[in-house]
């Protein structure tokens, strides 16, 4: 696959603060790449450097084969969807979308054609004349996307674009965005701290912490083979078990429980022998599942397992349990 963006040896300091120690990353053409991490991990800074709104302290940014490291934002072929949309309040929807085309002096006929196209694409045709303040958050979000897309950027940068919306709308727009990206074949770089969003939308996820890439891979790999404790903890829920010198991460859905008296050492079981024993300390209802919290005997650590609505055995607080799993489900992680 052709590379669209290469970040080579990027570092970024704000004053004395080192936000990003040396970072290398390539992004392929047509890829939906998500930068995922807690706030302050440098993901937005990275995005802003690609947009040209920040300059890296050292390193190079190559866009489609051209070094753009020191090019100002208005000379770069990328467009950004801002976190709070940053729509121009003194212009209506249509004028907002026209803005970029006017700046690039696109001939009027072509501009009109492109504007109607994105208005159709983002289902904003009936709102042409509205001002941003007269629209809901979801609609404003669409305007922000339309305003960026109309310029046919080589890369679309999205900075937590759904962060300000409610849960239902967010779900809906996630799908819309993903479909849009797929049908246009455009490169998307998407910044979010929402791991669920990252997992459902991305072709590839780059997990960052403190300016350092923790793991870079397909969502499936990120979820099922986390490389280290940070990734395992940040994406989904994880339990950690120390066995010898190694630490194993286990998803709650991969943990199985048995009544202690049925699976103590020496008892014949139809599953692998439990590695740990403990007592149930709490059970919390979560809709599709119940979370069962178990305090381990030897370490006082609390781990969590799921109990499904159709499970025959219903656990109660103070039940003595053994915890077992299939060997293939335990992921050895770096500290």
């Amino acid at each position, binding site marked *: 696959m052709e590379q669209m963006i290469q970040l080579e040896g990027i570092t970024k300091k704000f004053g004395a603060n080192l936000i990003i120690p040396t970072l290398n990353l390539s992004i392929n053409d047509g890829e939906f790449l998500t930068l995922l991490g807690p706030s302050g991990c440098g993901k937005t800074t990275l995005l802003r450097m690609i947009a040209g709104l920040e300059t890296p302290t050292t390193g190079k940014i190559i866009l489609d084969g051209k070094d753009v490291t020191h090019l*100002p934002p208005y000379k770069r072929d990328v467009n950004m969807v801002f976190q709070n949309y940053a729509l121009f309040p*003194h212009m209506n929807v249509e004028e907002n979308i026209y*803005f970029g085309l006017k700046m690039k002096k696109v001939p009027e006929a072509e501009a009109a054609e492109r504007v109607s196209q994105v208005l159709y694409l983002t289902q904003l045709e009936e709102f042409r004349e509205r001002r941003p303040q007269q*629209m809901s958050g979801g609609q404003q979000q669409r305007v922000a996307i339309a305003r960026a897309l109309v310029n046919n950027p080589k890369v679309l940068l999205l900075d937590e674009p759904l962060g300000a919306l409610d849960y239902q709308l967010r779900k809906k727009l996630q799908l819309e965005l993903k479909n849009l990206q797929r049908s246009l074949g455009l490169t998307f770089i998407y910044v979010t701290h929402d791991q669920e969003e990252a997992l459902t939308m991305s072709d590839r996820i780059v997990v960052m912490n403190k300016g350092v890439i923790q793991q870079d891979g397909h969502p499936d790999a990120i979820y099922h083979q986390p490389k280290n404790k940070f990734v395992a903890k940040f994406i989904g829920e994880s339990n950690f078990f120390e066995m010898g010198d190694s630490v194993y991460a286990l998803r709650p859905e991969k943990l199985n429980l048995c009544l202690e008296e049925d699976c103590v050492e020496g008892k014949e079981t139809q599953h692998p022998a439990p590695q740990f024993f403990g007592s149930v300390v709490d059970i919390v209802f979560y809709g599709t599942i119940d979370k069962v919290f178990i305090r381990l005997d030897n370490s006082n650590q609390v781990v969590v397992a799921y109990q499904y609505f159709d499970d025959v055995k219903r656990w109660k607080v103070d039940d003595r349990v053994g915890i077992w799993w299939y060997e293939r489900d335990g992921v050895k992680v770096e500290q």
Partner: protein
Amino acid sequence: MKNGKLLVAPTVLWLCVFFIIPMLIVVAVSFASRTPYGQVVFNWTFSNYQRFAEALYISIFGQTLVVAFITTVVTILMGYPVAWSIAKLPKKWQQPGLVIVMAPFWINFLIRSYAWVIILRSQGVINTILLKLGLITTPLQMLYNEGAVMLGMIYALLPFMVLPIYVSIEQLDRRLLEAAADLGAAPMTAFRKITLPLTMPGIAAGTILVFISSLGMFVVPDVMGGAKSALIGNLIQNQFLSARDWPFGSALSIVLAVLSLVLIMLYYKVLNTQKGGADDAKDVA
């Protein structure tokens, strides 16, 4: 009194005592006439307003408008960059910056006007330096002309332009400028298309403050303009203090007030059509 209407009583009372009643007195006096010794006789006449139609007064009015207009334009051109640079200072330097703009208010305005006289007059600071340097042989006449009046007005009113513009620049969302840059607008274009239209309310507020103040200004023309340049403010002042013709002074004041009101309304109308009713839109949302 169920709806708490009584609560507005202090405001109404205040407005009546300090604003409405004095205003009505001025209106009443403007329809009176005076005795040879300057006493006011209420005989309800239009003659004060008719007198205003004389060419002399019309030309004074016209000149006042020209001076006020130029003062306003120059304070916008000078005030905007000042406000801009204060708003762009690091947060902790903004407050001191504003204090410096307002510092002249701590000194009486009359004294500040005389300070300009000391700087500009024939044996003043500037002329002395230029003469000593041998750049000129005879002192420059910098005082007691229209230029001096303009200078004094601009000096006096500049802070009234800077402050409202500063507020509107300070409130401007910086991300809008980032968005404009991202969409291909070079800094100057972004300023023209985004910053300027969005800081228009500040310019409008400053314009009104400066324009109205300069219409009624009489200290500056008096001290720095000499006898040659009379503006409407001086004319009114003269009617009350020297000519002892209160009715004519009152009539002039009323005409000035009405004129200001009309101009402000026109100004807002033009501003609103330019914005395409952006404020109305805000109300809906």
